[in-house]
């Protein structure tokens, strides 16, 4: 019986779902989206390469590291380990696309 009342009440409420592509979803502060890399802060210690469980990080030289997001699983070990805080999270979660090259953070 209570279900009927709730269902009838829903007739007069706004839809619970959001019209996503038009209406952006706000994310919380701790959200882990795409990685961000700040080359100027990097000290070239290679700790992130050693710690990455899915081998998504390629070290070229100090200040030039590539993060392959097709392999990244957002575990956050590189962010926690980096002593110079050169790797941070962004709140960008729209990583789907048709171009693999766009998913490499440099």
């Amino acid at each position, binding site marked *: 019986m209570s279900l009927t009342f709730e269902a009838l009440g829903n007739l007069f409420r706004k839809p619970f779902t959001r019209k996503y592509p038009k209406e952006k979803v706000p994310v919380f502060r*701790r959200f882990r989206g795409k990685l961000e890399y700040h080359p100027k802060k990097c000290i070239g210690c290679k700790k992130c390469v050693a710690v990455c469980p899915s*081998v998504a990080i390629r070290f070229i030289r100090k200040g030039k590291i590539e993060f392959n997001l097709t392999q990244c699983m957002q575990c956050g070990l590189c962010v926690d380990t980096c002593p110079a805080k050169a790797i941070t999270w962004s709140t960008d979660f729209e990583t789907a696309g048709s171009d693999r090259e766009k998913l490499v953070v440099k």
Partner: protein
Amino acid sequence: MQRVCGICPTSHSTAFLDCVERGMKIDPAKKVKLLRVIELELERINSHMLWTGHMANILGYKMLFMFFWKEREHTLDVFEKITGGRIHHNFSKLRSARFDLTKDMENFMLRKLARVEKKVKGYLKTFRSDSIMKARLRGVGTITKDGAERMGVVGPVARGSGVNIDVRKHIPVYRELGFEPVLEKVGDSYARTLVRLRETLQSIELVREALSEMPKTRLPKWGSFAGATFESTGRSEAPRGEDFHFIKAENGIIKRAKIRTPTFSNIISLEGMLKGREIGDIPVILGSLDPCFACMERVMVVKDGKAEDMSEEEFRRKYVGNNIPSVCPTH
């Protein structure tokens, strides 16, 4: 270890950390233990709501399904706020946790949980009084207490048959919170449904108690198991039952890992439950076991209708290649 399952990632990481911490003889601080309790119980609320909605869907109650999943959205919001991930939380760390809870987050959590509790209580009343639900669920897929003990089923399936089995009652921090397993006697699909709904309410209560007992200290620094040599076991109570991990590590490198997932031990009882029932009851019986296929799946290579039999080295050489790292530095 989070990636084993998408519905119960925290129970896998907790079992793994239990295993490693036992092997390295680390005793985490009380605050860390309580944070893990909160994570596990939120995950249980989440999983049981997902399951009950799915069960309502099987029974033909599309509307109730929508209602349950709408409430589940609120618990997912809690997860996103406190851990940063909706599905994969990555919250636990060796000896510590990734983040601390702020006052704002505690209030947010309590507000959302109060809402969920009110709704779930109403739905539980519906499940208790609705005659169609009773007709579809009562006496369907019965497993007796004796049968459940013999089959070795775990989790809500065993507790629905009256078997008092729960990992949580052996964990000291749960005992301090006054935890008692939820039991039903009959052992049919209806009993399992009631166990899960009552456990949802119990978990909400446990989260509240854990929050009230949380010490106001700072989080300890998280460690790594670089250089550790041990051979150890660990377990935790996943929403579907006991989750068991075995790890053998040498000099910080994991040499062998074995995970015994709960659905794997529950699904064996399916044959006895199906005997003598009608075709229309199959979705209800299979659904009432809460089969998670990430829990159940094992690797099997089938070529030309024949299963290939191979050793570990052959499998590695043939299918894995050199992409898998042999070193797992922290967890």
